[in-house]
């Protein structure tokens, strides 16, 4: 029996900031009730923003525009490189430009349903409302969205919905939106309102008298560890998908900021909710360092299939039509290849588990464009997906115009994150979490083109309104400086941790531990989870952790540019976070969205939610490393979208 798994349940958690009343009026109500900071006083307030992705970049720029003094950090060499840049598909907005029956309420409904009824209604509705303003804002900034010949904006449809509400910029929507935010941020940097620290990684948060007052960060070039102080700290550090080692995240995306915040008192909510994206390029071997996503938009025209017979090794083109199983079209006739991501991923896993997978190791399914090429012509397919096809060919050396693409699911996004209230404040006063770093809006599964929407909603509109309330209510606080005993303690803990990593001088590389942890998590906490598997993982993780601290090898010193040290330090946190993810997955004995427990399925193999027992967000409170955490439940109530079994058949 594992002691970590014997968690205790604490006080239920209530979102005290969410207003009552009709859902469409709640955001207005909250904005009105929130106290304001006098514009003249704003420059006296310093706000730290960690991360420069869609959420962080837009928040930093907007807070600076409002007059706050912003101190911003990113580990990349430039704020323009945050991984939001890699989002391909698009951004949803309830503009109803197509006149196809879309509305704010429909976007709200789709998102709550898509999240498998594990998100807060109030938050999701706010997101849908703001979606409209985001498009206006981005267009004004010069984001070159795709346009029709009349000069108006084009939209397309995306997995899991039946309206065309996704705005896009070819296959590079994330890039264009991020550059918009980056440019707005750059303007504020030039104006002296944002003090930007690139190549600087946050290593801990400073909490004094129960309030977040600053961070500890390391200059990645000089290795100098420094403290930075502020009246509020905003974490926009992204998701934790890299726990799995192989994911579609950037190589250096990491969980250190959120995990350190968690250790300092911020609850971590729904850590087991991870999204496995169905259309990624399969791995080719042990050398694989990351997985590359192929945009979900490919499913609009591509047909997914595997051979009907097990172990069929014939080349795809030699398998006759009647020996192919277009399994998504067969199982889900009304949505077909456009079912939500969790469903498409699990279906791919199932056919591969049956031994019908294709490609090396049988870990792949075909995404076939032969029909689309015949129907639309090669030219049209090229115009729509050319850059994606090129990318696929560059990576695999196969021509997708001639042979079907091979795809396989891969870890993509984490719906879980720091628990935040309606104001996006964590359980540590003054500590806010926005974008993928928080847990709030996507429930157990995120719909395509919703992440960009949420990141920008949080950064441009929600946080800049709600943070005023916190700053206004906490106007004069004691000065905190580097000499403060709490600060000294946090600083020395950080230094000790890095020094220890350098001192072990063992025989294993950081990557070898990361890969080992990732494989374990993929096997037991990946697309399908079982109690036995999760318990096995919970047993194994502390062992890896123990071995890590015994055998890790980090060359060089801490006083220089040292990428091995950066990596090793991130793995320290993955090794603790992984444990919490498994525990959360173990405790949630139901299937919902991206979390599929094999014990909980319908007779035909679909996810079976257990609303009576699990209609809550699980917020975990840290106790100490390796010790069982305390669970706080935030009950979820559904007044507008009544929970039903999701059906895409």
């Amino acid at each position: 029996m594992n002691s970590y798994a014997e968690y205790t349940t604490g006080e239920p958690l209530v979102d005290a900031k969410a207003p009552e009343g009709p859902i469409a009026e709640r955001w207005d109500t909250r904005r009105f009730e929130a106290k304001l900071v006098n514009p003249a006083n704003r420059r006296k307030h310093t706000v730290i923003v960690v991360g420069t992705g869609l959420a962080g970049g837009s928040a930093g720029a907007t807070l600076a525009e409002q007059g706050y003094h912003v101190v911003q950090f990113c580990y990349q060499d430039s704020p323009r490189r945050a991984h939001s840049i890699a989002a391909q598909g698009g951004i949803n907005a309830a503009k109803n430009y197509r006149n196809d029956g879309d509305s704010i309420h429909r976007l709200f409904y789709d998102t709550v349903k898509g999240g498998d009824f594990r998100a807060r209604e109030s938050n999701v509705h706010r997101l849908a409302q703001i979606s409209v303003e985001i498009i206006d804002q981005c267009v004004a900034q010069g984001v070159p969205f795709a346009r029709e010949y009349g000069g108006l904006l084009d939209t397309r449809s995306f997995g899991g919905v039946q309206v065309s509400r996704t705005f896009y910029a070819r296959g590079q929507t994330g890039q264009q939106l991020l550059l918009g935010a980056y440019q707005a941020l750059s303007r504020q940097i030039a104006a002296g309102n944002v003090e930007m620290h690139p190549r600087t990684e946050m290593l801990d948060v400073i909490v004094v008298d129960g309030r977040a007052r600053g961070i500890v960060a390391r200059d990645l070039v000089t290795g100098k560890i420094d403290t930075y102080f502020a009246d509020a700290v905003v974490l926009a550090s992204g998701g934790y998908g890299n726990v799995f080692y192989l994911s579609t995240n950037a190589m250096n995306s990491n969980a250190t900021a959120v995990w350190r915040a968690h250790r300092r008192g911020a609850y971590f909510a729904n850590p087991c909710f991870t999204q496995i994206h169905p259309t990624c390029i399969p791995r080719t071997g042990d050398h694989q360092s990351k997985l590359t996503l192929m945009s979900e938009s490919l499913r609009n025209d591509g047909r997914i299939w595997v051979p009907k017979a097990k172990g069929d090794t014939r080349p795809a083109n030699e398998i006759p039509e009647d020996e192919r199983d277009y399994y998504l079209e067969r199982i889900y006739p009304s949505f077909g290849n456009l079912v939500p991501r969790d469903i498409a991923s699990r279906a791919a896993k199932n056919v591969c588990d049956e031994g019908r997978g294709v490609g090396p190791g049988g870990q792949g399914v075909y995404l076939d464009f032969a029909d689309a090429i015949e129907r639309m012509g090669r030219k049209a397919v090229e115009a729509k997906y050319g850059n994606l096809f090129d990318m696929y060919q560059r990576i695999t050396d196969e021509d997708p115009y001639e042979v079907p693409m091979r795809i396989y699911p891969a870890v993509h996004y984490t719906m879980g994150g720091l628990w935040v209230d309606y104001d996006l404040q964590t359980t540590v006063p003054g500590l806010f979490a926005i974008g993928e770093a928080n847990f709030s809006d996507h429930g157990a599964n995120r719909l395509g083109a919703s992440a960009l929407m949420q990141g920008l909603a949080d950064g441009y509109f929600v946080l800049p309104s709600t943070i005023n309330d916190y700053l206004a209510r906490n106007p004069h606080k004691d000065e905190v400086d580097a000499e403060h005993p709490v600060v000294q303690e946090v600083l020395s803990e950080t230094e000790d941790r890095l020094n220890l990593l350098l001192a072990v001088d063992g025989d294993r590389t950081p990557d070898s531990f990361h890969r080992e942890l990732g494989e374990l998590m993929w096997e037991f906490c990946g697309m399908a989870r079982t109690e036995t598997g999760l318990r096995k993982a919970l047993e194994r993780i502390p062992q890896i952790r123990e071995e890590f601290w015994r055998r890790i090898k980090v060359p060089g010193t801490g006083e220089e540019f040292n990428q091995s040290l950066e990596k090793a330090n991130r793995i320290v946190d993955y090794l603790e976070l992984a444990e919490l993810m498994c525990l959360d997955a173990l405790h949630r004995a139901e299937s919902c969205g991206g979390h599929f427990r094999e014990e909980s399925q319908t007779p035909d193999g679909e996810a079976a939610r257990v609303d009576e027992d699990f209609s809550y967000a699980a917020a975990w409170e840290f106790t100490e490393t390796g010790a069982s955490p305390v669970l706080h439940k935030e009950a979820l109530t559904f007044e507008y979208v009544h929970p039903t079994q999701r059906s895409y058949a």
Partner: protein
Amino acid sequence: MKLTLRVWRQKNADAEGAMSTYEVDNISCDMSFLEMLDTLNEELIVKGEEPVAFDHDCREGICGACSLVINGDAHGPERTTTCQLHMRSFKDGDTIDIEPWRAAAFPVIKDLVVDRSAFDRIIQSGGYISAPTGSAPEAHATAVPKPDADFAFEHAECIGCGACVAACPNGSAMLFTSAKVNHLNVLPQGAPERETRVLDMVAQMDTEGFGGCTLTGECATACPKGIPLPSIAAMNKEWLRATRKVNR
């Protein structure tokens, strides 16, 4: 595959650098170039040597972090980013030279890592549209002719990797600067700051110590995103127009 690598090693910005030779074995042709370097680094760490430092992040060709000059070519022999270059572009037994971007405005930080903050400062000097959050009009208030929107997009694709500077014999940042100027200046939203934008960005580019353009075309050949050479002419036109208008 077995390869000989000659890699630029430089302890820090102030140290002298030199090429060091390494042998790597069991390289699969499916590996990306950076995965090949990962393999080398894993071996170096186990041997107690310092791994080769290089910038990389998304590894899908969009963040612009990776920045290696491979056998004299920025991003190597294929027209793509280093992270999307695969080992099948090389042969067993090859010797591969790996160097950092070289330009006065991009000082080396360590090994193959350079400081590209000059690019950020060029953007800060005017590479934006001043549209504070909340001030935006309805998105459809201004239609943008499709050719203009496409022209803007073509230039907005720049990933800011710096290959143009690395490839240019003059270390010039004209292609980078022109990409942003052209993206924003063609859009109606960018019109109010059209003149100041190009003047300030070009001035900042010069301040950073980049060289001038002699139109050798090396930049456009190296650009992984295919920003075309005529972008530079288009920016020159904008600049000349701006000097006339601002001084009127």
